[in-house]
């Protein structure tokens, strides 16, 4: 049965690939969301990890609280919260007769033509912004835990040696702990780097047209459900394989000789 169906599936996939302009725009949007979320997550996550580890009583508790809250609640719930929060605030403001926050209706985008098809790429509009922020703030919590693990693995002796030379804790953390922790974190951190492209699909629910939304669009036009999802799955597989391989190379290149 399956073998007999296969030629048909190949045809379907080719038809889905006929929407290459849509898929390309969707892929670009997915990677755009991924890049910003990973970047925001990296810097905020690193800050959270440092605060949790070295921040003293108050700051380390705030950091821990943030990490547990973000890891303990569904990403989709966070997305909806960030999406609806401005509207809720506005209705409160409106009830008080106060000026309210302008939400949608703006966008930065560019349009180009490739092989006779016109492609419009939205860099940022209000739903993209909310998507990026939610993914970044969520990823930060996970990345923070990877960073904390690697910071702890460096050991207290290194910071004590730095302090015994007269370095402040801050200098010790930046010149001694982080250079080692960031090398050590790569294998574990590559988990987050490989998960995050897949998590970006949730922004489909607030209307961001990334790869998954484009698949829906193609399905609504062609009804080729299986073929469309196969194409999307293969695209994700390729992206994530490339990310993993890339990070493997970075890990080997940055390895400390002799260790």
């Amino acid at each position, binding site marked *: 049965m399956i073998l007999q169906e296969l030629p048909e599936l190949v045809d379907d996939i080719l038809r889905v690939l006929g929407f290459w302009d849509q898929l390309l725009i969707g892929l670009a949007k997915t990677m755009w969301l991924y890049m910003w979320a990973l970047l925001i997550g990296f810097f905020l996550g690193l800050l959270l990890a440092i605060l949790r580890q070295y921040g003293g009583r108050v700051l380390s508790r705030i950091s821990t609280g943030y990490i547990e809250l973000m890891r303990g609640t569904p990403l989709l719930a966070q997305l909806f919260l960030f999406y609806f929060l401005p509207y809720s605030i506005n209705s409160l403001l409106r009830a008080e007769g106060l000026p309210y926050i302008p939400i949608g209706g703006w966008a930065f985008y560019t349009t180009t033509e490739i092989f006779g098809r016109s492609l419009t790429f939205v860099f940022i509009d209000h739903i993209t912004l909310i998507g990026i922020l939610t993914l970044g703030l969520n990823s930060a919590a996970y990345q923070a835990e990877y960073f904390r693990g690697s910071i702890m693995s460096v050991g207290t002796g290194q910071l004590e040696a730095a302090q015994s*030379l*007269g370095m402040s804790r801050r200098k010790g953390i930046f010149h001694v702990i982080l250079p080692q922790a960031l090398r050590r974190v790569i294998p574990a951190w590559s988990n987050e780097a490989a998960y995050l492209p897949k998590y970006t699909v949730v922004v489909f629910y607030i209307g961001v047209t990334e790869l998954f939304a484009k698949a829906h669009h193609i399905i609504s036009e062609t009804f080729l459900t299986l073929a469309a999802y196969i194409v999307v799955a293969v695209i994700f597989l390729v992206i994530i394989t490339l990310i993993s391989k890339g990070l493997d190379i970075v890990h080997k290149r940055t390895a400390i000789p002799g260790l």
Partner: protein
Amino acid sequence: MEKKYEKVLKVVDVWKSYEDLEVLKGISFELGEQEVKVIFGPSGSGKSTLLRCINMLSPPDKGEIFLSGQSLMASEVDLNAMRAKIGMVFQHFNLFAHLKAIDNVSIGLRRVKGLSKEEAHIKALEALRRVKMAEWANHYPAQLSGGQQQRVGIARALSMEPTLILFDEPTSALDPELIGEVLQVMLDIAKAGTTMVVVTHEMGFARAVASEMIFIDKGVIIERGTPKHFSTSPKSERVKHFLKQIDILYGRHEELLELPDEDD
């Protein structure tokens, strides 16, 4: 006023406890310029804690530490600046694993003393030469033997030109055949006039350079005196027993080691 007669280090009635455990119970001693003080005693007696109190990595609960007359317990003191004047050599070397030997030595010169990259490099190489490690300047710690790592550790402390260097059992994590090279370097710098506080059980080293030896047990000073005093006429039974155990360990005694009872 009388700055030139000021002792390099004064430790006055230092107490330290970790939770319920009292580790130091009123330790006092002084150290003059170019003096070498050897501190020894059984494990868990508080020797390492004492060194960590001196450079304020674990500040004492009570008591005073003076470096060249300046109190380290005073609230307005810049501890980072003071620590730059107190070198420390660690039992487990604690070299910065991600840096080459030369960069391990120069990092303090650059990040603390603010020297330029070139100046720091020249000074670091000079320090490595003093510990006979200049040839290994471009090796990472993991590519060096324990003895070589410890010599880099000593160079790292020396390069800062500190007023005083603390040695925390610098040879006790080393294979026996590597101890000699580290002790030789320590002898060299001691004879060159470095002021040192050394926690060690190397009695040969102590005899060669110590101006005074202090025996500590359970957080108190049991006995103090010259190396000659300890080798000829130690008074306390505790010290005699300890020295005998060390002699046995080094094969200079007929008896066997007394092992503690299993249910101890």
